[in-house]
């Protein structure tokens, strides 16, 4: 299996390939994957004195399936989206590399190959981030720095682990972790967590994310925020569930608390930032950070229900955020702008895009009866039923963020698709089929998962049992917490769908003949007649009141501090480099001084 992926990797690099080739490659890989998932063979590649293992297990199957399915669809979208752009080869090479490296990460059985693919993912995504050539705020460099911090923290943890237990296998770490000393456990745990938190954009390490998401081409951002960030979740779940739970020390409890609260704070702050954004891409980028915050919190709480909800949300988030980014990409490609304050009323021009975006938005807001609600419900229940008081306060944080999420969800739909129609956007057409089909397919998947979440519970439950939970229970379409309280999705669907259909039918047939459509210029304007060019839509500073209300917490961004830190370092280095004066005598003097010093203290140094 891993061998197949590696083969694809190698094959990618040879030709400068077009989008179609990459789509074919990815989809064929997907087909290969979904057809031979049963095979649990282990491919080993041996390098000098250690061997790289690739294999599939119940847990990684979830992520592998997610990556494969979604990236196949997205690469189909990619064909139409990238058509007409230049340097396609460059883009698609990295695009495919990133996806394949994700597969590599998921398949890796040992830390070395994990790290190798992790870094490939990092630099290929970096090259895509700089593809558009936007360099506001040095975002590419920033992304690279943060990823490097994370990656190297992980590398350090890996080599230390190897020095402890002479093995790179993930399983061996899991088994050996309890035997380490406390300091060692703490160090390895923290280093790994830093490594994963960067990709999962947890609060203090999230600075790179918004711009990196919004500046890279949308067809990649769908992957970037949907899947690539999930790799951090992938690792984190292993750490939290398999490793820390076995730890002999109490302070893993502290980690989980800290990380859980960090996740909560991330969710709230990112949501607030998302609410006040003016650009659709930026809004979605912040919202991705917020959603990842939920997932991290769910993992950190670590009960059966919360972990299940976290993994469920991970998959669902990949779906709906993929749809939303693709929809925004479609709007960007068709209308040439993503500014929420200028666009409007595209619903009549791009109905399919609107439909899928609507479904995705409902799922994102966690409103029943779609899949998003299932994940959120499990998260809340797991927190409320948790024995740990701090989770009960955390649940308020999460609730705040998910209530505020309605705001930006509505802002997104309203800004792009609703509001007054204007001659400026009359030329806009519906996106071509290759872009629409993936969106609609994924939307339908969301609906299906809302009706029968069990389809997704099954693999997740298997994965969790692999990770070390006992008998994770799940029903096909009803949720239940440990207090035995249930929500029956089928009845919810029954009532919602019946009522909605009844209501819609009633409202449509009620004196149908005289009901008519009038343009959005025909509105109550106190008798005034709006000219064709004047736009009466209220879209600028849509949430100004809310902004004013939350203004106290928004004064300083984390970015601000990082920039100051960076500038400080730069100036320090500038001072240090003065040692190299570029003057021959100085250098000679250095030599002499060095010689003298060594001669003086040589006795002490060299026995």
């Amino acid at each position, binding site marked *: 299996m891993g061998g197949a992926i590696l083969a694809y990797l190698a094959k990618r690099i040879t030709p400068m390939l077009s989008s179609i080739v990459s789509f074919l490659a990815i989809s064929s890989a997907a087909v290969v994957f979904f057809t031979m998932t049963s095979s649990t063979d282990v491919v080993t590649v041996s390098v000098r004195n250690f061997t790289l293992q690739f294999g599939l297990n119940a847990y990684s199957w979830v992520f592998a399936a997610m990556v494969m399915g979604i990236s196949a669809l997205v690469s189909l979208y990619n064909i139409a989206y990238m058509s007409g752009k230049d340097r396609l080869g460059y883009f698609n090479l990295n695009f495919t590399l990133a996806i394949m490296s994700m597969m590599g990460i998921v398949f890796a059985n040992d830390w070395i190959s994990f790290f190798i693919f992790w870094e490939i993912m990092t630099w290929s995504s970096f090259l895509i981030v700089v593809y558009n050539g936007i360099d506001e705020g040095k975002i590419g460099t920033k992304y690279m720095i943060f990823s490097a911090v994370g990656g190297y923290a992980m590398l350090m943890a890996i080599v230390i682990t190897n020095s402890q237990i002479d093995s790179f296998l993930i399983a061996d770490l899991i088994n050996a972790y309890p035997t380490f000393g406390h300091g060692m456990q703490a160090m390895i745990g923290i280093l790994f967590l830093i490594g994963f938190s960067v990709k999962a954009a947890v609060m203090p390490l999230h600075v790179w994310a918004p711009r990196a998401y919004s500046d890279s081409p949308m067809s990649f951002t769908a992957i970037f925020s949907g899947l690539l960030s999930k790799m951090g979740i992938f690792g984190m779940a292993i750490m939290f569930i398999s490793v820390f739970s076995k730890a002999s020390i109490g302070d893993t409890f502290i980690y989980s608390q800290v990380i859980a609260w960090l996740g909560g704070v991330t969710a709230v702050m990112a949501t607030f930032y998302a609410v006040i954004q003016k650009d659709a891409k930026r809004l979605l980028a912040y919202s991705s950070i917020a959603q990842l915050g939920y997932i991290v919190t769910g993992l950190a709480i670590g009960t059966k229900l919360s972990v299940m909800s976290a993994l469920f949300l991970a998959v669902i988030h990949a779906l709906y955020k993929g749809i939303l980014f693709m929809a925004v990409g479609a709007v960007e490609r068709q209308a040439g702008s993503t500014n929420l304050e200028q666009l*409007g*009323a595209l*619903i009549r021009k791009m109905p399919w895009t609107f439909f899928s975006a*609507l479904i995705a938005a409902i799922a994102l*807001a966690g*409103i*029943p009866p779609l899949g998003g*609600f299932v994940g959120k*419900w499990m998260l809340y229940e797991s927190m*409320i039923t948790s024995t740990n008081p701090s989770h*009960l*306060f955390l649940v*308020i944080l999460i*609730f*705040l963020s998910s*209530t*505020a999420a*309605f*705001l930006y969800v*509505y802002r997104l739909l*309203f800004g792009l698709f*609703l*509001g*007054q129609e204007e001659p400026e956007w009359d030329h806009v057409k519906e996106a071509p089929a290759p872009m629409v089909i993936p969106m609609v397919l994924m939307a339908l998947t969301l609906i299906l998962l809302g009706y029968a979440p069990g389809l997704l519970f099954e693999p997740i439950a298997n994965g969790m049992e692999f990770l070390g939970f006992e008998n994770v229970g799940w029903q096909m379409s009803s949720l239940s917490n440990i*207090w035995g309280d*249930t*929500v*029956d999705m089928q*009845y*919810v669907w029954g*009532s919602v769908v019946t*009522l*909605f259909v009844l*209501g*819609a039918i009633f*409202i449509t047939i*009620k*004196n149908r003949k*005289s*009901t*008519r*459509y*009038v343009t*959005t*210029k*025909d*509105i*109550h304007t*106190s008798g005034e007649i709006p000219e064709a060019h004047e736009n*009466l*839509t*209220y*879209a600028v500073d*849509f*949430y*100004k*009141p*809310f902004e*004013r*209300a939350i203004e106290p917490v928004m004064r300083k961004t984390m970015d601000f501090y990082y920039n100051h830190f960076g500038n400080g370092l730069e100036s320090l280095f500038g001072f240090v480099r003065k040692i190299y004066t570029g003057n021959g005598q100085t250098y000679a003097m250095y030599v002499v001084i060095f010689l003298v010093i060594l001669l003086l203290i040589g006795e002490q140094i060299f026995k």
Partner: protein
Amino acid sequence: MEDILKLLGGAAATMLLAFVVGATYGGLVRKIIARTQNRVGPPWYQNFVDISKLYMKDTAVHHGVMQHIGPAFAITASVTVLMFVPVLREGGWFPWFENLNFKGDIIFLIYMMVFGSLGMALGIGQTGNPNASIGVSRGLSMMVGYEIPFVLSLVSVMVQTHTTSITGLMEWQTQNGWLMFEAPFAFITMLLAILGMFHYAPFDIAHAPSEIASGPPSEFGGKYLAMMMTSGSIFAFAKLVFLVDVFMNGASNLVMLVVKTLLLYMVPVLYGAVSPRYRTEQAIRYLWGWPVFFGIIALIYSIYI
């Protein structure tokens, strides 16, 4: 088939009840406000007249499909909430009022309650009326304001009673007494929260009458407005019943139900009848002030009791 029929019949009966009571409450509220302003006020059945008149209006214009089905969203949400809320306490069931009470729980209801407003907001958004959009922006912002104390109070109640289903809550109350007294801080928080929830003054900035022309529903007339008013009265009733179930152990018969709900309803109404209007950010700051404070006390109380 049999129970399907029972379900539908029960649903219809409950809807009818909810509509009647809700609309009557609406009329009473208008009457009460009129009294506080030293007027006579309309007859109690005024809302029925209005709604039926609106249903009878001939023409109806809409600005697109979302506005067309927006009211359908609203009525779906309110009736679904009604379906999942036990109208009468166990034992005192009218045989057909047991709708779907065991199929959902409080978290689900909290989310279901915002479903309608969001669907409405989508419909309103398509009208392109600036006043309507302003109303939506204010309304959603204020929703963030009052959801927090609302949720705080409910969470503390759930923690205290170790159940998240309403029927469970009611069983707990039949054994240990009303949560209104068992969880006093939670109740205070809830009272403060519903001030915001029912959108009466001082929290009526969302559809500020005569400031932004009748706010979000500006462009809705005829059957659309009628449907919104229907769902509004049903929704009000459903919310009241929900609160009564949570804090006053439901009601065993319709009379008690009416009394309790009316008592609870009077809080926002009377408070609103004599209040001026908050601006949005003031409202949010207010709702995140004392209510949240009490809510946190309630949470601590419920943890360490």
